[in-house]
């Protein structure tokens, strides 16, 4: 069944004690939140924990939601903060691309029926390089790029999540793309950028 209440209506209902309304809010956004978390922390298990924790924290802070932003951008901000906390508290770096859920998802979900081994290898190399390039970015550029490109938020929405103006989001996306392009070029994906440009 497709529920038609807006996020705001669900949050308002949850604030008045309607637990089922918050349940619908969870069901509506859990995939996106999980997807965002998995791209930020690059671990499926951690992402699952973060996604659940984000909803728990959001529920505990319903009274703080002042309605100035959209509920989902508010939820996204919580998710981003939790993900960054998880990244910063990691004792060691992740081992490598073999257990990177992003790469498997890129190969399995995008081209599930691809049977050409050479094409599969090329896809894997590209996904690995792209993931490594994204991970090489600073925390700020990486998070902004993920929100805007991978998750598809508008600059305005990303600005709400990150607490910065649209223009800043645009600048960060521009910088991130520039660095990513150079990173990929150095790995043989695309032409090397013109240093004079």
């Amino acid at each position, binding site marked *: 069944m*497709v*529920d*038609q209440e807006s996020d705001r209506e669900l949050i308002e209902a949850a604030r008045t004690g309607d*637990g089922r309304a*918050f*349940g619908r809010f*969870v*069901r509506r956004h859990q*995939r996106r939140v*999980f*997807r965002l978390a*998995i791209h930020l922390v690059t671990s499926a298990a951690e992402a*699952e924990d973060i*996604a*659940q924790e984000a*909803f*728990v924290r959001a*529920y*505990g802070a319903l*009274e*703080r939601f002042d309605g100035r932003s959209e509920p989902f951008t508010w939820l996204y901000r*919580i998710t*981003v*903060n939790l993900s*960054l906390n998880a990244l910063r508290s990691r004792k060691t770096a992740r081992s490598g691309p073999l257990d990177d859920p*992003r790469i*498997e*998802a*890129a190969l*399995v*979900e*995008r081209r599930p029926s691809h049977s050409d081994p050479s094409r599969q290898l090329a896809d894997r190399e*590209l996904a690995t*390089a*792209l993931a490594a390039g994204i991970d090489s970015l*600073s*925390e*700020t*550029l990486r*998070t902004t790029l993920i929100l*805007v*490109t*991978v998750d*598809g938020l508008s*600059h305005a929405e990303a600005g709400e*999540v*990150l607490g*910065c103006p649209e*223009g*800043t989001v*645009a600048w*960060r996306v*521009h*910088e991130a*793309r*520039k660095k*990513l*392009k150079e990173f*990929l070029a150095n790995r043989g994906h*695309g032409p090397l950028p013109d240093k004079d440009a």
Partner: protein
Amino acid sequence: MSPQDRSFPRLPDDAEALLYEWPAPDRSALAWEGFSSDTLARIDSAPPSAPAQTLFEAPLPAEPGEGSLEPEPVEDAPNLAEAARAVLAASDPMSPKELARQGLMAAARRRPAAEAAKLETAAGPHPETAVRPANDARPVPPSRTGAVPPRPPSERRGPADPAPLREATARSEMPPATQGPPIGAAVLGAAVALAASAALYFATRHDVAPSAVVFPTSEPAQAARTAQPSTPSVVASVAAPTPTDTAPATPSSNSGTAAATPAISSGTTSVPTPALASRTDAPTKSKKASPSAGKVVLPEAAEAPTDDSNAATTEAPAAKAPSALPKAPADEPTPNRPSVGLVQAAVGSVMMGARSCLAGQDSGSVATVTFGSDGRVRSVSISGPAAATPAEGCLKSALMGARVPPFSDPSYTLSLTVRPP
């Protein structure tokens, strides 16, 4: 690349596609149900204490040397050109109001205040007074009722006064219920804005390869170039009508440019219809009202986008801008397949409609869109939650409207994820 990112550094095509369609590992509906149950159980068992405030604060530090990019920088003419092209590429007919709104916004960004005042003066009188319905209770400005003769712009406001910009923009953004009649003025504004931006851009960016900014052109455009040697060729191709988008151009013995603008000499005053071809109607009306009616002054428009109000309001290039679409210079080889940027622009132009089909759904669906070599969508298939639901037809209908320039390969297929709004 989404429309908002189109001016940014581009990655290789495959990387762009992956970046924008990067999925998360999917799970079964049962697994997601379990996930939400676990989440709600955690909520129930969580202590009632409120989370720390830091969790709700802006998460990231500023990047060293961080700057700001305006969403549509004034200097970035390609953005405007691409925006116009994306707008016009949309198969869904755009309402005159929307066309006007975008045009006026562009005009407001590009023109100094005094220019906007001239635009306002030139665009204002006729529709507000002539087409005003009897039940429109809005007050009519004295200058439009004839009670007070309109003053020249220089007397009305100082050149630095941005009020005209605000007024022009505000009028364009009035809700439909109150905007009512001034469609003619608004369409005129849009036409002027598009012409001025295209002219300024092409006049200042001769180094840009035409294929990067202009679609293939038609023969009438070539004729226009031949007949008007002083006209920047790119402007002429912008003005060219296309057989698929507008009524066929009837070559005239008067001039090449006249041949490219049949609507201008037709004097049609019918109410604009949503069809793309009819977008030239409103400028036609302005042509009739203008002192230079019947003349098409492409060179001036190209050379002086910030020229006087006559040049800004009566010249038709903007009126012909809608016909700038998918054509390429005749000497430009047809690409094997459309560039990712053009595909994304085409898809972006219909994406809002497609996303609205998924309103209320939890997750996105994957659409596989196949373009034929004529640039039209040949087929759309949907997989994911929307498949076999009413949303599937809605999605197909929305995505079928995407258009890309013609290409030589038999077809071009892409998959894209349509997410709920």
